[in-house]
C-alpha cells in the first residue's frame, strides 16, 4: 500500500530544490527505504558538493559533507572503521563522474560495502548549468552554447556501463524518476542497494536519471519529456550488474 506520510528519515522541512527537480523525489525514496529497513539510527550519509549539498537539512540522520567528488573516499574511511553502520553517498554527475571519477572507480573496484545514489541530471545544477560528463550530444549548456560535441567535448559518460567491468562491483542499476512507474522501480533498486550493504555484498550503485528544469531551461513537463525521449535513449534503464 502506498503511504503518503513523511518518512522518519526525512525532516519535515521544505527543500530548496527548484520546482520539477528530481533530487526531492530521489531523496524521498532513499528516506522511505531507510525507514522500511529500520536503518535511520545506524546510518551515516555523505553529502556531495552540488545541489544536494544541503541534504543534512533534510535527512534525519548523521551526515558528513564532503569535498567535491570525494564522497566515496570519505565513505570508505567511515565504513572501514564502522562496518556495522550503514553508509551511503549521494552524488551528482559532476561530483561522481568528473571531479570524483578516480574515487568512484577505485571505491567500486575495491568492492567497498557501500551504497551509492548517483543522480544524473546531465548538467551542473548548482553552478548554473555548465556541461556535465553526462551531458548528451547536442545538448546546449552554458559552456556548450553550440551543443555538446561541437568543440571536442567528447560524448556522455555512461557510468553503469563503465563500472560494470569491475570485479568489485556487486550491483548497478539505472532508473529514472520521470514517471510514477519509473519511481516505483527506482524505489526497488534503492532498496536493493541498501539490502546488499546489509548482506555485506559490496559496492552497489543506483543511477537515477533526473530532471533539472531550471538549468535545462525547460518547463517541468518538458523536462520529464527530455528524460523520456532524450536521456533514456542515451542512458538505457536496467540492471547492469547483479551478483
Amino acid at each position, binding site marked *: 500500500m502506498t503511504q503518503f506520510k513523511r518518512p522518519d528519515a526525512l525532516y519535515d522541512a521544505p527543500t530548496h530544490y527548484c520546482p520539477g527537480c528530481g533530487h526531492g523525489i530521489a531523496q524521498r525514496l532513499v528516506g522511505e527505504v531507510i525507514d522500511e529497513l529500520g536503518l*535511520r*539510527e*545506524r*546510518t*551515516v550519509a*555523505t*553529502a556531495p558538493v552540488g545541489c544536494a*549539498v*544541503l541534504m*543534512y537539512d533534510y*535527512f*534525519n*540522520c*548523521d*551526515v*558528513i*559533507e*564532503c*569535498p567535491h567528488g*570525494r564522497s566515496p*573516499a*570519505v*565513505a*570508505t*574511511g*567511515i*565504513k*572501514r*572503521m*564502522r562496518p556495522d*553502520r*550503514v553508509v551511503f553517498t549521494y552524488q551528482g554527475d559532476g561530483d561522481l563522474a568528473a571531479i570524483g571519477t*578516480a*574515487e568512484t*572507480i*577505485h571505491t567500486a573496484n*575495491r568492492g567497498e560495502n557501500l551504497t551509492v545514489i548517483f543522480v544524473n541530471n546531465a548538467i551542473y545544477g548548482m553552478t548554473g548549468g555548465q556541461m556535465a560528463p553526462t551531458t548528451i550530444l547536442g545538448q546546449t549548456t552554458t559552456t556548450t552554447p553550440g551543443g555538446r560535441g561541437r568543440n571536442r567535448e567528447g560524448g556522455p559518460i555512461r557510468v553503469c556501463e563503465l563500472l560494470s567491468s569491475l570485479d568489485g562491483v556487486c550491483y548497478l542499476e539505472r532508473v529514472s524518476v520521470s514517471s510514477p512507474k519509473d519511481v516505483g522501480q527506482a524505489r526497488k533498486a534503492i532498496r536493493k542497494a541498501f539490502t546488499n550493504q546489509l548482506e555485506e555484498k559490496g559496492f552497489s550503485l543506483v543511477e537515477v536519471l533526473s530532471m533539472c528544469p531550471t538549468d535545462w531551461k525547460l518547463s517541468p513537463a518538458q523536462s520529464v519529456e527530455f528524460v523520456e525521449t532524450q536521456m533514456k535513449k542515451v542512458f538505457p534503464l536496467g540492471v547492469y550488474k547483479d551478483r
Partner: protein
Amino acid sequence: MSTQTAKILMKGNEVMCEAAVRAGCKFFAGYPITPQNEVPEYLSWRLPQAGGVFVQAESEIAAINMIFGAAATGFRCMTSSSSPGISLKQEGISYIAAAELPCVIANVQRGGPGLGNIRAAQSDYFQAVKGGGHGDYHLIVLAPSTLTELYALTMNAFDYADHYRNPVMILMDGILGQMVEPIVTEEYRPLFEPTEKDYILDGCKGRKPRIIKTLHLQPAEALVEVNRRLVAKYKRISSELKLCEDFQTDDARLIVSAYGITAQVSKGAVLQARSKGLKVGLIRPITLWPFPEAPFVKAAKTAEKFLVVEMSNGQMIEDVRLAEQCLRPVEFFGVGGGWYPTTDEVLDAIEKSYPA
C-alpha cells in the same frame, strides 16, 4: 613485534609507524612516494596486526579524504606522503581543519619544486606552517630532529590532534625517514586526560543527528563566527604549545637556528665552534606552528647575530626575523633541491657569520 619496551634498530619511517600504532592509530590511508614508502609498507602489516585498517588509496587526494571519513568516526588516524603528494592533500587538509577533526599527517619532505628529486629537503615549511590549502587555518606542525624524538613526537601528535581537535603535521625529511638508529620503544603515555568525542558520526541512536560540514551560508555571519572560533582555538594553542630546544644560548654572540635534521647537524657545528672558543648557541624550534618566539626575543637581547640553516632557499628565516623583531641581523645558510649541509660546512658558515 611486541608492544613491550625494547631497543631496536629501525628506519625513521618505521619508527614513526610503530609510535603511531602504539599511540592507538587505527586507520592509515596513503599512496606510495619516495622517500616515505616504508610508511605504507610497514603499516600494511603492522596496523591490521594491531586491530587497525590499512588502505592503499588511489591517490593522495583519496587518502586524505579517507582520513576525513575515518576521523569523523572518532578513531585515531593518519596519512603520510612526501612533498608532491602533500600538495595534492591540501584541499582535504583544509576541509579537515575547517571541520575541526583530529588526524596526523606526515610529510617526509623531498626536493622541489615540481617533481624535484628524492633527496631530503625542507622546502615545504611555508606550505606546512602558513596554510598550504585555502582559507584561514593552521596545522600544528611538529619537527623532530632525531629518531628518538620522532618516536615521542608521533605519539604526542595524536594527543595534540585529539586535545585541540586539529590536524597535526609531522614535518620531517628524507634523511630522517631513511636513517637508521637504535631506538627505545617506550610505552605510550597520553599527554592529556581523554575527552569525550561529541562529534562522532556513528548513527544517531539515542541522540540527535550530527552533521560535519564546512559550508556555512546562512546567516551571512555564520562563517565569520566559525572563523572567530578558529582564531580563538589557534590563540589557545599558541599560548599552550610552543616547544623549543634552547642550546648554549646564554652567553652566545651568534645564535644558529635550524629545525629537524638540519638542527642536528648544526648542533654538531655549534659544539665544534665552542671548542674553538666561539660563543655560539642554537635555538631549535620543535613546534614550527605555533612558532616559539620567546627564545628568539630573549636571545636578541644579548646575542649580536642570528644564522638560520635550512635545506631550503630560506623559509623559516622569515619566522625567525618576525620572532626577533629585526633587532639583530639574520643571515642564512642553505639552499633547496636536495642539498644537505655537513657539520664542517655549517661550522664554516658560523665562522663567516661570527660577529667581529
